[in-house]
């Protein structure tokens, strides 16, 4: 159940992130389709559109396409009942015809959860390959399509060696004959599909390459360090750092993320790639300390690692200068604030029950 407090919470987030609601005037009276519309991105895009409609008095329509509409209605009832939102229950692999009034598409379907990728690798490949092809095929037949934003992944960069931050032109290595690269390779072929549809059918596609995010609607059970650190912290610890504690990541807050995506929808260059993420880098060790100090300083932090020293340091931090400059976006939430708001939201929402 979504309480007033929680609704206001995400509204405040959108208010902070959405510095210029008027910059979305070209979306007024337009329809946007979001595939993967019931996931983390879909929920935040719905929050942001809701905010923009309300504050700028726009009429932006949203189609959210997802596999489990019933779950969405329970999780975010305040969004599900908005009149500007239409929910479509469908498997993205199976999209054929889309509502003809759609002007914009945000293709965000497919789980980034690595547990799904290794347990169901074939479904993963199908979702990204066939799913992307189905959506783009259907898009070729839309009469008034203005822009598509394809949500790719930072994983397409492969191993990045010492390159940090990672710019859009960086190309790393990927071993294709490997179960653990199922997701990365699927995301790569999806981008290639985009370029083919852009060239053959002149589809106006912009590619975004997301890094890591945090904030409300991030499921703390997802197998990512920050999610698990926060969960372990709320549970009273210990917070476990698994693997190399020097690993470097960065986290963009949910409402910033959705503002940036919508900006790409309006102003993104066709055929361009943009990194979508935070430039505020942090090591896992420092991240764990930050989280423990925000919850309770006495929470223990333990490190568990297969090796004493690492020859390879994983640094997944985007160079965001391109998106910041060309789309006129900014990070409005410093990491400290992002973390504290995530913790508070999860506590308010009773997402983690301490036993």
């Amino acid at each position, binding site marked *: 159940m979504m309480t007033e407090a929680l609704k206001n919470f995400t509204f405040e987030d959108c208010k902070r992130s959405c510095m210029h609601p008027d910059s979305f005037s070209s979306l007024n009276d337009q329809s946007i389709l979001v595939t993967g519309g019931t996931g983390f991105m879909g929920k935040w895009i719905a929050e942001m559109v809701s905010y923009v409609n309300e504050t700028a008095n726009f009429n932006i329509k949203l189609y959210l396409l997802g596999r489990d509409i*019933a779950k969405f209605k329970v999780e975010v009832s305040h969004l599900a009942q908005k009149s500007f939102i239409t929910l479509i229950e469908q*498997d993205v*692999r*199976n999209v054929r015809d889309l509502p003809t009034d759609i002007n914009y598409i945000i293709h965000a379907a497919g789980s980034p959860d690595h547990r799904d990728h290794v*347990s169901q690798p074939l*479904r993963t490949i199908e979702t990204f390959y*066939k799913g992307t092809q189905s959506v783009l095929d259907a898009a070729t037949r839309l009469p008034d399509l203005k822009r598509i934003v394809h949500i790719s992944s930072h994983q397409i960069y492969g191993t990045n060696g010492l390159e940090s931050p990672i710019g859009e032109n960086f190309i790393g290595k990927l071993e294709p004959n490997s179960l653990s690269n199922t997701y990365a390779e699927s995301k790569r072929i999806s981008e290639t599909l985009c370029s083919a549809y852009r060239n053959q059918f002149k589809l106006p596609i912009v590619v975004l390459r997301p890094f890591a995010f945090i904030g409300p609607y991030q499921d703390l059970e997802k197998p990512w360090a920050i999610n698990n650190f926060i969960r372990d912290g709320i549970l009273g610890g210990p917070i476990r750092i698994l693997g190399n504690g020097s690993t470097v990541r960065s986290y963009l807050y949910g409402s910033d993320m959705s503002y940036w995506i919508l900006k790409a929808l309006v102003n993104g260059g066709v055929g361009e790639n943009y990194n979508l993420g935070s430039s505020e880098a942090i090591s896992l060790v420092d991240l764990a300390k930050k989280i423990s100090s925000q919850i309770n300083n006495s929470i223990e932090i333990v490190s568990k690692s297969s090796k004493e020293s690492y020859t390879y340091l994983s640094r997944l931090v985007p160079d965001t200068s391109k998106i910041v400059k060309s789309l006129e976006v900014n990070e409005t939430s410093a990491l400290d604030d992002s973390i504290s708001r995530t913790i508070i939201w999860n506590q308010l929402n009773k997402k983690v029950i301490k036993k």
Partner: protein
Amino acid sequence: MLNKTNMTKLRVAILGSGNIGTDLLIKIQRSEFLECVLFIGRNLSSPGMAKAIAMGVKVSDESIKAIEKDPDAIDLVFDATSAKDAAHHWSILEKLGKIVVDMTPAKLGGLCIPAVNLAEAVKQQNVNMITCGGQASIPMAYVIGKTQKNVDYIEVVSSIASRSAGPATRLNLDEYVDTTEMGLMYFSKAKKTKAILNLNPADPCIDMQTTIFAQVENPDMEELTKEVNIMVEAIRKYVPGYSLLVSPIYENGRIVIMVKAQGLGDYLPKYAGNLDIINCAAIAVAEEYSKVQNNSN
């Protein structure tokens, strides 16, 4: 007696285009009592869908909506999706008055082992097929319950080929165990039951093998053996690949019976006896509905 020339085939739909659904479809094509009028999934490009289209069967990718659109075209629905989806489907199908043969462990309707309670089961609108291990083991547990006094405990262990266990099975082992134990309890009247499942990756693939253990004081092995043999024959009528591997023995204070289920090799190889046995049982149930309806017409 049914007069085959006047017989109306029961019109069935299959919900779920995975391995179970597709294998059911192939088996239905051979049935004198059933006609598959709609094969429903979510993804038209899945191998099951492709197979159905190639066979000339009407398909839909609209899930339960395909039935809601034209409910009068269908008499019975095989639900071969997931326990969660089956519950949602049933909430709709019950109102539409459709018979449901549930292949998932949703446990919404009466449990059915055709060799034991077929006639009773088809009096209900929703019949649950329990689990593959249940279809193999429960008939034996039932015979033990029938022939022995004071059955304290029954336990069944199934080993299946790793390759025959898809992602959903692997993620839902707990549901398998729960549902099988519930079925065992219901049919054997034992005081306590336990189910165990092993996945074996051996190459070549092993056939599905199930062992039934029972704790019984002073067992009547003669009567048990006689009834087990009768039961095996009854099961073989609808599961031709079912056989007794080890006849009832009394060893170390426990009754031991071992059975094997080899598949027909319809959609999946013969080692996938676990999928075959639950499908054969489901077909037997649907055919019984068809016979009952024809008899009452």
